């Protein structure tokens, strides 16, 4: 592939992987079975990123394994209703088209594990999207590093990745135990827990893999929220959680213990609440993308009511289609809330458009503040819906 026999795009892809392998001391390449590419929103890519992708498509790049995409900057079918400009839409369509030409499934979701790109335990994969990376390593037990957009694309076009980091057994072992001595049950509380752990580790000046104990129950919805948060605030690509992570049963929790108490979670939670209900003019659920169970709950709570604020329901296209069939979409849209499939409030071009966001997602709070200059209100799922109705 390095000689150019498979075309310039494949050659460039292998050059990227060979350089990364050399930098991180990989001894060989490992075949991957699944790729998830980030860097899809035209808001983040710009013309430069788009021209790189077009060049790779023109250069004959073709995905050799199942490859799916992160959210785009807009709902591909319903962008006008979300206030997206025609210029932005045109750029976004060209990005999607370039990926499609390379045989990438233009799924546009940050939860590939809910939409048909699901690796099994022990499988080597190359995923970008930090929350999905964390979920794949920690909940499924598949093996991936935190890829960037170009390195994930390179893995797709070659079908391999350099064997370093989380592909190797020795780097998947925990070094610190985190004992959670608090009740954590809702998505927002799991998000606050992710931030609390991330910040404690940052203060200690290190980023060790942790074993988390003390969590009695965690649903898939809770775990996707937690993974997004600990990846955003702690840079974590993986954790062990007793009772959840397949590998956690194979290793004893490390002796060095860090304790997370109710007040740590409360402090993290409070740090993501810098606005009051009166300030909120934007409500969004679906960071990471909503599951069909969560959408059913939204429909239940919105039935026969009218929302009073801009309310985005962000999810993957297939989930939206099941919601259509079940009648949830009709109920939700009758309330005035808007479906934003294929996209989310993190990657859409909405900087400065609103004053304050209400959400159940700690990750969404981070980007609302840093990227879009919004204040934030973090609440449990049902309370966020109440916020939209207020």
């Amino acid at each position, binding site marked *: 592939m390095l000689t150019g026999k498979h075309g310039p795009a494949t050659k460039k892809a292998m050059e990227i992987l060979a*350089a990364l392998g050399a930098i991180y001391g990989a001894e060989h390449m490992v075949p991957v079975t699944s790729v998830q590419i980030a860097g899809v929103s035209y808001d983040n890519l710009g013309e*430069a990123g788009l021209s790189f992708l077009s060049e790779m498509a023109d250069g004959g790049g073709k995905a050799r394994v199942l490859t799916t995409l992160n959210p785009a900057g807009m709902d591909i079918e319903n962008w006008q209703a979300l206030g997206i400009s025609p210029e932005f839409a045109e750029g976004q369509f060209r990005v999607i088209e370039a990926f499609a030409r390379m045989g990438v499934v233009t799924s546009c979701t940050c939860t590939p594990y809910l939409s048909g790109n699901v690796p099994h335990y022990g499988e080597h994969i190359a995923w970008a999207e930090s929350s999905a990376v964390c979920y794949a390593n920690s909940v499924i037990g598949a093996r991936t590093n935190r890829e960037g957009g170009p390195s994930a694309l390179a893995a797709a076009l070659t079908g391999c990745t350099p064997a370093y980091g989380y592909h190797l057994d020795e780097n998947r072992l925990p070094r610190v135990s985190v004992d959670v001595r608090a009740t954590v049950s809702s998505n927002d509380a799991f998000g606050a827990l992710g931030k609390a752990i991330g910040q404690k580790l940052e203060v200690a000046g290190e980023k060790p893999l942790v074993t988390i104990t003390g969590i009695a129950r965690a649903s898939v919805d809770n775990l996707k929220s937690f993974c997004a948060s600990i990846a955003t605030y702690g840079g974590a690509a993986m954790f062990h959680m007793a009772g959840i992570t397949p590998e956690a049963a194979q290793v004893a929790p490390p002796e060095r213990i860090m304790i997370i108490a109710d007040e740590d979670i409360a402090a993290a939670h409070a740090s993501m609440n810098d606005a009051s209900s009166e300030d909120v003019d934007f409500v969004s659920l679906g960071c990471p993308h909503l599951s069909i169970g969560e959408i059913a709950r939204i429909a239940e709570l919105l039935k026969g009511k009218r929302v009073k604020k801009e309310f985005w329901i962000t999810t993957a296209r297939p989930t939206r289609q099941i919601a259509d069939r079940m009648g949830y979409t009709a109920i939700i849209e009758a309330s005035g809330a808007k479906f934003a499939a294929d996209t989310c409030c993190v990657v859409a071009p909405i900087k400065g458009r609103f004053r304050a966001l209400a959400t159940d997602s700690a990750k969404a709070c981070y980007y609302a503040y840093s990227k879009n200059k919004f204040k934030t209100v973090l609440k449990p799922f049902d309370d966020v819906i109440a916020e939209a109705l207020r």
Partner: protein
Amino acid sequence: MIWHGRKIYQGNAAGEALVTRMGISFFGGVDPDTGVIVERGHELEGQCISGKVLVFPTGKGSTVGSYTLYRLRRNGKAPSAIINMECETITAVGCIIAEIPCVDRIPIDQLTTGAFVVVQADDENATVEAILGNYEI
């Protein structure tokens, strides 16, 4: 003075060194249209990296930074070469897609801004030669 380093991306270049002891975040830290460093409080804030042999310890920040290097290249504002103490993913991927010669494992504390530097990275054993005080080719 000649140092031997590790080739990250091949190519040859020569030019004036622009040296910083601080990390560089290309995404948000460098204006992709002008090549000027815009990170608040950076020791090179306000300086242009275009055409220079850019010398810094290592990259930092968002992985989207790789695309910023690519964009600088498309705009004709890229540095002529990059020299690092230890190269990381963002800079490495950026140099590869933007085709900017890049060498690391060079003792960059011995390089000073203004020195004329020749980078030869055609094979694995890349060299960086600094001709101090001589700014002419």
